[in-house]
């Protein structure tokens, strides 16, 4: 039983990454009708926002320390962090330690800006063109974004640690009434799950309870009519694109401590998140979230040692097997509406 709970936890945390990326993809697809192959690259950009923030926060300058000398008797030069200069020893160290959560604040404006530029500069011109063209141009954009990152940050993964206070392990089993050490789980992964759950809830609440969200939903259902009512739907859709980019971005920021960001990340996650979207049903937001978590959990069960011994390698293909099966049995996906993209 405790094994099962561990696998569900594992699945939830991978699933939350799937769900967040798929949610953004679906927002773009549902509102603008654009298939965005660069969405994985946006996720990667978010992760690199975390890298940049932690680099900036831990920037330092050399100071000659008279009290310490090297073996020749010369005074030693030591690194002094600007943060500690400005905010004092303890507060400065805490700020540097919390670089990843702080990066969220940086990433939101950055990602919204990237999203705006992308939509106004590129995607806008592709609404009327076939989906194949949209796939191709965003695929090209994903290559370019990956290469830009590679140029500035190199090809190797960059470690981006979580804050000290959140990087330990929690004895999860005790909460559920098991003995100590029965289910021990990395704290940051739990944080990631709760974080993404609240983001997903926030996006849904935004769409459900605000006037803006209502208009956007109306626009998703029937763009023309909303336009005829005198509402500038294009502007709102541009904003939705920025929002989707921001969701992908903060998903990437918070995921950075779990996988060290590298420039290949975008392409690696893209295929999986598309599979998630298709399984959930194109254009269905709840479907994307549900499919994200379900596939995450299925994947983590498939990677249990017993299962892998029985069917070697099953953990690597299970998602595709499930996706293909679902597409063939129920082509519109788990929660897709009938008729969307079903040509």
């Amino acid at each position, binding site marked *: 039983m405790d094994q099962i709970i561990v696998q569900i936890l594992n699945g939830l945390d991978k699933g939350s990454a799937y769900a967040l990326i798929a949610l953004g993809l679906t927002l773009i697809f549902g509102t603008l009708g654009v*298939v965005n192959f660069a969405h994985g690259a946006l996720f990667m950009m978010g992760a690199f926002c975390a890298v940049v923030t932690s680099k900036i926060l831990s920037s330092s300058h050399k100071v000659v320390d008279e009290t310490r000398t090297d073996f020749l008797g010369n005074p030693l030069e030591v690194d002094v962090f600007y943060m500690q200069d400005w905010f004092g020893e303890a507060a400065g160290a805490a700020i540097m330690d919390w670089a990843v959560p702080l990066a969220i604040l940086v990433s939101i404006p950055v990602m919204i800006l990237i999203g705006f530029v992308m939509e106004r500069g*590129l995607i806008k*011109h592709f609404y009327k063109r*076939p*989906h*194949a*063209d949209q*796939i*191709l*141009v965003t*695929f*090209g*954009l*994903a*290559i*370019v974004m*990956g*290469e*830009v990152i*590679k*140029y500035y940050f190199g*090809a190797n993964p960059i470690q981006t640690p979580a804050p000290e206070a959140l990087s330990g392990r929690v004895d999860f089993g005790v909460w559920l009434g098991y003995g100590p050490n029965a289910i021990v789980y990395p704290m940051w992964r739990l944080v990631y799950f709760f974080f993404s759950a609240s983001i997903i809830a926030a996006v849904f609440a935004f769409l459900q309870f605000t006037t803006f969200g209502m208009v956007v939903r109306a626009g998703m259902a029937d763009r023309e009519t909303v336009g005829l009512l005198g509402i500038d739907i294009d502007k709102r859709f541009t904003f939705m694109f920025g929002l989707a980019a921001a969701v992908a971005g903060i998903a990437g920021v918070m995921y950075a401590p779990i996988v060290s960001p590298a420039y290949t990340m975008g*392409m690696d996650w893209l*295929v999986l998140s*598309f*599979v998630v979207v*298709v399984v959930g049903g*194109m254009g269905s937001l709840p479907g994307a979230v549900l499919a994200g978590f379900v596939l995450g959990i299925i994947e983590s069960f498939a990677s249990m040692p017993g299962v892998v011994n029985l*069917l*070697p*390698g*099953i953990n*690597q*293909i299970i998602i*595709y*097997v499930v*996706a*293909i099966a679902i*597409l*063939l049995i129920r*082509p519109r996906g788990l929660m897709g509406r009938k008729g969307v*993209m*079903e*040509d």
Partner: protein
Amino acid sequence: MFGLAAKDTTLFLVVIGLVIFAPFILNPFPEGSAMAQFNAGYPDLMQRFVIFGILAIGFNILFGLTGYLSFGHAAFLGVGSYAAIWSLKLFTLNVIPAILFAIIVGGVFAWAIGKISLRRSGIYFSILTLAFAQMSFAMAYSVLTPITGGETGLQIKNTDNPLIGGPTDGSIGRANLFGAEMGNSFELGIGNWVFTFNLGYYIAAFAMIVAFYLSIRIFRSPFGIMLRAVKSNQNRMNYTGLTPKVYTLYAFVISGMYAGLAGGLMVAMDTQVGPERMFWTASGEIVIMTILGGAGTLIGPVLGAGSIKYMENILSKINKDVLHQWFAMLPDGLEDVVVEFAYIFVGKQWHFTLGIVFMLVVIFLPGGLVEGAQRVSARFGRKKKTTDTTDNSASTSAE
């Protein structure tokens, strides 16, 4: 001639000529000169030109004619490669059976995947093929390790004992064509130039010429017209009593066989294969080649494959030292700035250039390089005869 219309015959003859004289054409700069690094006339690269040309021609039969965008064609390339290497290991070191096996296995595999994937169309089809290809990659990488060699891949070993005519002295066997090895080359030195004529290249080139000929025939046949009908309006096809799915499946299998052929040739030239050949970005590369050259045109995919492989091999070799040599005539400070800027586009970052060029082509030149050439010739060649439509297309390109 060859059962082709006059225009196609000319194109076909030009392609034959280019392919046969490639060692001359691709080696325009004398050995030892500063420009020699732009020479592409060495066997390894020329083989890649024609092999990826075959791949792109095959992909074009599916995508260019029917409009079905497959993101999983590298899978067929991969299974073709595995089939070919097993033929070399177990059956005979002769490349002809290996290539035939590769074609057959590629076709059968494509039939199986196509049968399932083609039940959906549009974006769903793209994702399905992508999922299948990633699945094949994962299987080759881990599950099927006994057959595929897993991560390390497969190559011919000295313990291999093919049924027919393997080496008896315990040496590592080499792929051959009735005894002539693929690496056999004849070098011709004229002045400062060295031209290499490589057997392996000419075998691959022959395969490409045949593949190109078949593709012309397919494009001009009633079958090709059916495929175009699939692209333009499937409903209408249904009403006239034709089943689009059958034609699409045939196109899919044919393009799978082309990919299998390319995979088999790759193994014949360089007797090793690894799973990374099947990763989905490899499929993406095939797509890029076809689009860049011009999907739906005869010669486009070959041009696209050639230009990408050229960029990959030549552009990526340009490093900072080379750039400093080029811009040496500039003042020092300016030179560094120019070199830094130019270095973004070459060397290890050549994919950046590729991505940008690809995006520009998709945005401004949906017909690829071929359409670009047509626009240029429409502008300059027959300026007096330009009609309104060409004027419009030319002006949109300028925007």
